[in-house]
């Protein structure tokens, strides 16, 4: 990054992405709709989780948003630019967008740094004088500084993923589109990517994060949209989706057995989620403080207690159907 993002020519309240009736059909007769009438609004500055099982149309949507594939119907605005204007619109908007789509990709015979320099040279708005610095800043930012001169073909899966992220960070970006960014990363790498996304978001970059991993979305996103079979099933702030389910209380205790009987006595549907953790559905009239008091008076050693919405996982499965079956 050569500095803070340049003043955006688009008003801050213009959504980063808007689609209307976005549709993509494949096949000779156009029988199969990979994306079917998608209406999506991604607010500026949000970390937007785009969630759905494999084959639900996430990547096809991203391809259309980035001009790699043409929609069969509908229209899109990215950073306020109407993509119906075609190639010219893409030339205008894409330099402001960093993307990692369907995994990283590189010429294996070039070094990591040379690969990044090549992508940068392909951007007609990039400045050659700052290329070297930007490439190395991007590499350092993803922890690849030491491997900059190594052939990309010799990188491990995790290093390739990091290199892909570095490619998305070559310039100041207003929007980052990250398709499964933590694929192939070890837990340490996953944490680093998460904190990278947070720091980018803190700089005001809108992050559009597609994933089939709920935990990933849950930990970094402010907003979420859920896809199923090419259609949007829900979309909005993460908190709202969470709140749509019944509130729950989670109790951590070494006295699980005793706690279960206390919670059941209060009439709460309780489930033991691990050796020392319980999950119960709160009922109206039984606030969490009443639960705490009851547990303590029964001599349960409470090590932790937390209130939350229905676990997002439950909501997700509810919305997308059981299992992660690939949609035909």
């Amino acid at each position, binding site marked *: 990054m050569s500095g803070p993002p*340049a*003043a*955006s*020519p*688009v*008003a*801050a309240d213009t959504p980063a992405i808007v689609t209307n009736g976005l549709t993509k059909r494949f096949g000779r007769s156009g029988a199969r709709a990979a994306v079917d009438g998608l209406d999506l609004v991604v607010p500026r500055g949000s970390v937007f989780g785009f969630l759905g099982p494999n084959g639900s149309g996430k990547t096809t949507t991203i*391809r259309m948003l*980035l*001009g*790699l*594939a*043409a929609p069969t119907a509908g229209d899109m605005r990215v950073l306020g630019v109407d993509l119906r204007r075609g*190639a010219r619109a*893409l*030339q205008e908007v*894409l*330099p402001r*967008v960093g*993307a990692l*789509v*369907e*995994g*990283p*990709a*590189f*010429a*294996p*015979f*070039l070094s990591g740094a*040379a*690969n990044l*320099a*090549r*992508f*940068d*040279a*392909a*951007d*007609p*708005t*990039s*400045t*050659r004088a700052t290329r070297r610095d930007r490439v190395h800043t991007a590499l350092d930012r993803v922890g690849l500084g030491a491997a900059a001169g190594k052939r990309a073909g010799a990188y491990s899966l995790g290093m390739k993923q990091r290199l892909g992220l570095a*490619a998305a960070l070559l310039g100041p970006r207003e929007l980052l589109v990250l398709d499964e960014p933590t694929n192939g990363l070890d837990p340490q790498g996953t944490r680093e990517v998460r904190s990278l996304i947070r720091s980018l978001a803190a700089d005001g970059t809108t992050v559009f994060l597609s994933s089939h991993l709920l935990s990933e979305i849950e930990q970094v996103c402010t907003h979420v949209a859920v896809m199923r079979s090419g259609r949007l099933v829900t979309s909005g702030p993460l908190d709202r989706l969470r709140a749509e389910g019944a509130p729950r209380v989670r109790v951590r205790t070494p006295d699980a057995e005793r706690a279960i009987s206390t919670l059941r006595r209060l009439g709460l549907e309780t489930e033991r989620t691990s050796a020392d953790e319980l999950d119960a559905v709160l009922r109206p009239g039984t606030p969490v403080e009443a639960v705490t008091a009851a547990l303590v008076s029964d001599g349960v050693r409470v090590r932790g207690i937390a209130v939350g919405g229905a676990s997002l996982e439950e909501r997700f499965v509810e919305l997308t159907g059981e299992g992660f079956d690939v949609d035909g």
Partner: protein
Amino acid sequence: MSTADTSPPPPAATASHRRPFALLGSELATMFRRGRTIVMLVALLLVPVLIAVAVRLTGAGSRGRGPAFLGDITDNGLFVVFTALTVSIPLFLPLTVAVVSGDTIAGEASFGTLRYLLLAPVGRVRLLAVKFVASCAFVVAAVLAIVIGGVVAGAALFPIGPVTLLSGDTIGVGEASVRVLLLAGYAAVSLLGLCAIGLFISTLTSMPVGAMAATVVIAGVSQVLDQLPQFDAIHPYLPTHLWLGFADLLRSPILFDSYGQNLLLQLAYVVVFGGFAIGRFTTKDILS
């Protein structure tokens, strides 16, 4: 932020218009750093060396046997270049050109780098143009490899002296060198059409090997058709028809008719297949 609505574009955007060839430099560096490119150029360089060594070891043999000019090599090392070009034009040169031009788009697609170049955003027509020019640069490098190999091997193993032309005239080494370069230019021009054909085929697939093979097959089929009198009517339009029509360059005075015809024919192929490539590539969904 809304006050920034009318802010001018960043200075970088205007700077790029002054450097339309910025990407070409990167592309050429990528191509010529690639092991495969270097191997092909070395192989082409070895064609004249092999010929020179073979002739040196076994003698010229009788004139009229083997490829054109072979019998002249013992008298004059410059004929190594002529022989090597004549031998390479039907097969070796088109083969390497097919590898490079067939790889242009399909190779990027198979690596997956095509999508990242387009996201940069390279611009689809600009990418095709850069890839085509880079293929042409390879053609020039390939022909030069043969010329350099031929001159070095010829000079090392045989005397270099005045050259007797097909018309019977004799020219000095200086003028003969000009003829060598003219002939090299002719060979390079001959391959421009094939570059465009390869580029177009490369936009049809994400399997570079398929595109390379198809391009070689086209060069081969065209040469076969050119041999069959039944196809007389289409002979003048075959991309390979004038590939060996450089004899006029070895007469005195030089006749540039076939040179011009060949250039025109090749340019026609560049326009037509370049147009196909643009038509195909600018409307294609990139799903690789």
